[in-house]
Structure formats: structure tokens, C-alpha cells
């Protein structure tokens, strides 16, 4: 039987464990910005989720969990898609859900094999629209050579969801010798991107109710597995890859800099941005470096191989405008710097709050 003192102690322990670790001075309810991929999202993960489920695989904190079964290395990932509008220039929620999960697998160095697909559909959603989404997912799977092997459908009352939400999970096999992680970034590594940034976020925005503007900008949503395969074919010195989705290029680079404690310097002049995206960003007051991509990847490659990798990427449909945008530096570990167009340097910070909600 417990004595009073140890009962109190245990009781206090329990209470301590139950209290929310995010201080009261912050928001006491979930805001849209908690899902924006910026600092509030990170707070949610680091303070509430990671400590509770802590284990050696989860603590990799990367796009996919990487683990071994019977000597073979696998990557496993999951993502939910709530993009609004459901159909947008260049794609739809279905193609996004397939490509997004494929990309999370392949930037972990895995060859994507199988996906699951779960649908949460709002009562009243047009069957014809649902059919369009299914066909679009089929097409995306065929393009990427990936199979959907399991799934689920749920319908919620009208007004209790917003048209349709899709969750996809994916599993992929990592070939021997491939080891992709922010921790592998090395001093002097070149940083490569496979083309123009910010097109997905701006395409979504252009289709948003209340902000429709006419533009030729299309979402860049695309499966990157065959591009990544080509890169591995010409180099064994690809150290780290990430897809700069929510929060854009700057948030992805900041995550890598923080996780690997390396310094990063990128050149504003080198970052590929289309004239249309630049124009839209100027008008709306956005910085393309913070806007989401759905068909882009950033790779950290050793200087000896960087040019070869870029040349190989340029031969692929999704890599024609591949370019080196910066490098890993010794100075300011954990920080991303940008050399501006006029030649000065400054910090390129992680996105704070939300720039655009529900873009994927």
C-alpha cells in the first residue's frame, strides 16, 4: 500500500504528464497556422507529439521513417491532403495525394512500391468529381509505376468536412549503399534544385475563391521517383534530399541546417522563379522562397559530383531547369543565409505563421 507522501508524488507526476507542454501564454487552441509547416507546426510536433511517441525510428524526423526488416531497408510515410480548391490548374487533390507520398519516399532514397489511399468524403460531394479524382490518381500511379494496394472510404455529414480529404501512405525499398539524411551533409556540398519554385502555391492561390486571378501558372505536382533514380545512377555522393512543400524552399533549408548543424548559403540570383510567379508574388506581397512546391526536390551533393548530377537531371522532364543554388558552409551552423541580388547577405528564416492555408 502506498503511503501518503508517495501517493502525492505519483499523483503529481501524473498531473505533470497530463498538463499541456505548450505554455498558456501561447494559443490555447489549434489555429490554421499550426498546420502551416512553419514554427507553430514545429512546436506542435516537438512539444506535443514527438516526446509522447518517442522511439529510435520516429526520432529520425525525416520525410519517411527508415527501418530494416530481414536485412533490407524500407521507407514508410503517410500524408493527408486537404487542398482547397479540390481541382486547381495543373492538378487536383488526387494527383497531389499520390505524388506527394511518392516524393516523400523517394527523397528518403527509397524506390516507392505500394500506396494506401483513404478518403473522407463530405455528404453531397458530386460523384462525377469523385470519379475525376479516382481517374487522376490512377493516372498518377501509372506514371510513377506505383500500385495502390489498400484503402478506406468514410462519409461524413454535410458541413462536417470540406468536400473531400485524402490520406495516402506509402512504402518503398532502399537499395543497399544509399543513405540519405540531413546528418550526412558535408562542408562544401552543393545544393541543387530541379527547377522553378513556388508554382504550386501560386496556382492554388489563383484558383481560390475571392482571389481568382487569371494566370498561366500551373501546379508543379509531379512524381519525382524516376528523376531521383537517374541521380543515383550517376552519383553515390548524394547526401541529403528533401521536397520543399509547405513552407517552401526556405523552411526546408532551415530544417536541414538545424538538424545537421551545418551552415547554408544560397544565392538569390540563382534561384529559378518564373516571371509569372515573380509578378504574382510582388502583387500579393509573398516571397517565393516561402511558397509550396509539389514537384521540387532539393539535393545536397558532394562538389565532385554536383555538375554530373545536374547534367543528368537536366535530361529528365522534371529536371530540365536544374541548377545549383548554394552550398554548405562552415560559418553560422544551423543557419541559412542568402546573398541578395544586390550582393549583401542576410538570414533566411523559417516561415513563421501561415502564408497560405490548405495548399496541400
Amino acid at each position, binding site marked *: 500500500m502506498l503511503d501518503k507522501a508517495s501517493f502525492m508524488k505519483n499523483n503529481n507526476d501524473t498531473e505533470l504528464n497530463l498538463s499541456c507542454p505548450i505554455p498558456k501564454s501561447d*494559443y490555447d487552441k*489549434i*489555429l490554421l497556422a499550426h498546420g502551416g509547416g512553419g514554427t507553430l507546426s514545429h512546436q506542435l510536433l516537438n512539444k506535443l507529439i514527438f516526446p509522447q511517441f518517442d522511439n529510435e525510428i520516429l526520432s529520425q524526423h525525416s520525410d519517411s521513417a527508415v527501418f530494416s526488416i530481414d536485412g533490407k531497408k524500407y521507407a514508410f510515410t503517410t500524408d493527408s491532403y486537404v487542398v482547397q480548391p479540390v481541382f486547381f490548374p495543373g492538378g487536383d487533390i488526387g494527383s497531389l495525394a499520390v505524388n506527394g507520398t511518392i516524393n516523400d519516399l523517394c527523397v528518403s532514397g527509397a524506390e516507392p512500391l505500394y500506396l494506401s489511399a483513404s478518403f473522407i468524403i463530405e455528404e453531397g460531394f458530386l460523384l462525377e468529381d469523385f470519379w475525376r479524382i479516382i481517374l487522376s490518381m490512377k493516372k498518377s500511379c501509372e506514371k510513377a509505376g506505383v500500385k495502390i494496394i489498400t484503402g478506406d472510404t468514410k462519409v461524413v455529414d454535410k458541413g462536417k468536412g470540406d468536400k473531400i480529404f485524402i490520406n495516402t501512405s506509402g512504402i518503398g525499398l532502399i537499395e543497399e549503399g544509399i543513405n540519405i539524411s540531413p546528418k550526412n551533409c558535408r562542408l562544401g556540398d552543393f545544393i541543387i534544385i530541379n527547377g522553378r519554385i513556388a508554382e504550386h502555391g501560386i496556382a492554388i492561390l489563383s484558383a481560390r475563391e475571392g482571389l481568382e486571378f487569371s494566370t498561366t501558372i500551373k501546379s508543379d505536382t509531379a512524381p519525382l521517383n524516376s528523376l531521383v533514380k537517374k541521380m543515383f545512377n550517376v552519383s553515390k555522393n548524394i547526401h541529403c534530399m528533401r521536397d520543399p512543400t509547405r513552407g517552401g524552399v526556405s523552411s526546408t533549408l532551415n530544417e536541414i541546417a538545424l538538424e545537421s548543424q551545418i551552415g547554408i548559403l544560397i544565392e538569390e540570383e540563382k534561384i529559378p522563379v518564373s516571371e509569372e510567379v515573380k509578378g504574382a508574388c*510582388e502583387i500579393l506581397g509573398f516571397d517565393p522562397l516561402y511558397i509550396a512546391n509539389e514537384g521540387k526536390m532539393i539535393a545536397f551533393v558532394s562538389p565532385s559530383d554536383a555538375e554530373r548530377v545536374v547534367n543528368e537531371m537536366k535530361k529528365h522532364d522534371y529536371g530540365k531547369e536544374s541548377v545549383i543554388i548554394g552550398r554548405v558552409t562552415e560559418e553560422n551552423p544551423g*543557419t541559412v543565409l542568402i546573398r*541578395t*541580388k*544586390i550582393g*549583401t547577405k542576410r*538570414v533566411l528564416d523559417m516561415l513563421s505563421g501561415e502564408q497560405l492555408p490548405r495548399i496541400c
Partner: protein
Amino acid sequence: MKFIDEYRDSAAAKNLVESIKKVITQSWSLMEICGGQTHSILKYNLEDLLPKEISLIHGPGCPVCVTPVEFIDKAVSIASREDTILASFGDMLRVPGSKEDLLSVKADGGCVKIVYSPLDSLKIAELNSGKNIVLFAVGFETTAPAVAMTVIEAKRRGIKNFSILCSHVLVPPAIEALLNSGRSMINGILAAGHVCTVMGYEEYIPISKKFKVPIVVTGFEPLDILHGIYHAVKQLEEGKYEVQNKYSRAVRKEGNLPAKNLLNEVFEVVDRKWRGIGLIRESGYKLREVYAKFDAEKIFSLEEIPVEESRHCIAGLVLQGIKKPTECSAFGNLCIPENPLGAPMVSTEGACAAYFKYRKVIA
């Protein structure tokens, strides 16, 4: 991008900096009025290029920052009502009121819609005939004409469920108040190019004469700002104090006359409280009597409860250019963009947010 890249050219920037170095012989403090200019200065880290004799003081030109906390509370109270929709520019949502911000009201089920153009709020009004739509009208002379046009349009279309919570403020009276305060260390002023695009720059001529301060109408791109600095320094070195227009690709002396006519039709000038600065005489707009039925303050009979600001926040001193954001003990620890104590940490034009976002590397 055409007409943008030309103003971000590194070779031209270097030439301008050289010209500034050639004319400068002593220390000068220049205030850039507009928060957009402050952001450009920090985004391009212009201070790294400039000779150390120049110190830039960041002015009060951030409409979100100077909107009094009482107005935020009024907006919060309107947005919390079941029968209303508050239409607002996105920036205002995270500005702390005395108890909560609009984002929290939204998360609690209050209806807050972000609009990019004031006219969009009329669309919302027409689509939601059972609700009262209130446009949170903040901003300087730049946004006020679009709001004026919206009010005129609402009257013309006979839209009855639309009103505005009017918190518009005017730049020249604030400049005068700062120069008059006795605490000012301002030698020269870079006037806000966009405000002058609407209003012209005739109003600045008496201010420049009265306080013997050169005023240069300046744009927002890095080269515009360096150009403005060069001319302000040149005048100071030559002992001159004139109003010069160095944003002539957008600004005419008389301004945009149709826009000014709209302002005059809809608004009258009143005394207005500025957050962090206090009451400035004849520094704001309110709706004229003929448009009183669009005045949300009258419709909802909102009480004004004076509130105290956080003791840690020195936003007032920052807005007056007396202190830099980094001189605040709360900067970057108690006060961050996710948990702002003062409005300058929220707005895309706020000086504190600019310092936080584009902070320099600590060597």
C-alpha cells in the same frame, strides 16, 4: 522581372553607395517613414552597404502597428457576434488586442474573412444577406481611396448589410508630431512613395520649411532607397532643406486627383489616437455624416474601453524611431511573431517583424 530587376541591380547599387560616400562628411540620421521601406532595407541588408555615418531610423508607417488596441478590441467584439462577418486584411488577424486577437476569435467560431480588396467585402455582403458585413478599414492614404470607393459603391447598389470600422490614419500629421516631439533626432526624411502616389507631396513643403528638414519622396526597391538616401544626404551636406521627388515614376506633385476626390467625398479629417504614440491632431479619417449609416461604430454602439499595453513592449518608442527593436528586452524571447506583444512584431510592415525575420548573423 521588368521594372523590378532594374531596381535591384548590384552594380548600380554599388555606384549609388559610392556617390553617398563621396558627399558625406559627418553623421546624419534619416527616417524612412514607411514600413515597406523598412522591410526593403532589412531584406536587402542595405545598412551593410552604407557608410557608418548614416543611421536609419524606422518610422511609424505601418498601418497595422499604429491601429489603436481599442480598435482591435472593437473588431474582436464585432467578429464575435453571431450576426456578423468581419472582413479584414490578413495582417490584422494576429495583432494582439487587450484580451485576444482575431485569429483566436476565428478559431472560436467567429466569422473573420480575409479580403485582398475592400470591394470583395461587398461581394461577401451580397452573398450573405442575413448577416452584417463589417470591413475593418485600416491603412494610410494608400488604402483609404479603395475603401472610399467601396462605401460609395455600397451606397449606389443600396447594400444595407455593409459597414466599415474606420481606423484610417494620415502620414503628414504624424511626421509633424514626430518632428515636434523634442525627442526627435531626425535630420532628414524619406517620405513614403505610395502615400505620395495618392496624395502628392505639396503637404510636405511647409513641414520641410518649418523644421528645416529635407524630405525626399522615396520608393521601395533597394535602388530607390539608396537614391533617396543619396539626395537627403546631399541636401544636408549642402545645408538645404527642400522637398524632392525621387520616385517620379509613380508620384506627381498633385498626386492622384480622382483618388483624392473619393477621399474628400467620403471622409472628413479627425483627431486620431495612434497605438504607441498617442493622440495626434487631425491625423485620421472618419466617415462624413452623409455616409454615417455605413459606420460600424454607430451601428453596433461599441464602447471604447481604454486598455493598458504590455509593460515589456516598447512599440511606441520603436514607432517614433527613438529605439530600435533590438533594444527591447522582450525582442526575440518574450515577443516573437507567433506570440507578439506588440503590433510591430506582427505586420509585414512592422519594424520588429523585419528585424526578427531578416536579423543579421551574430558574428
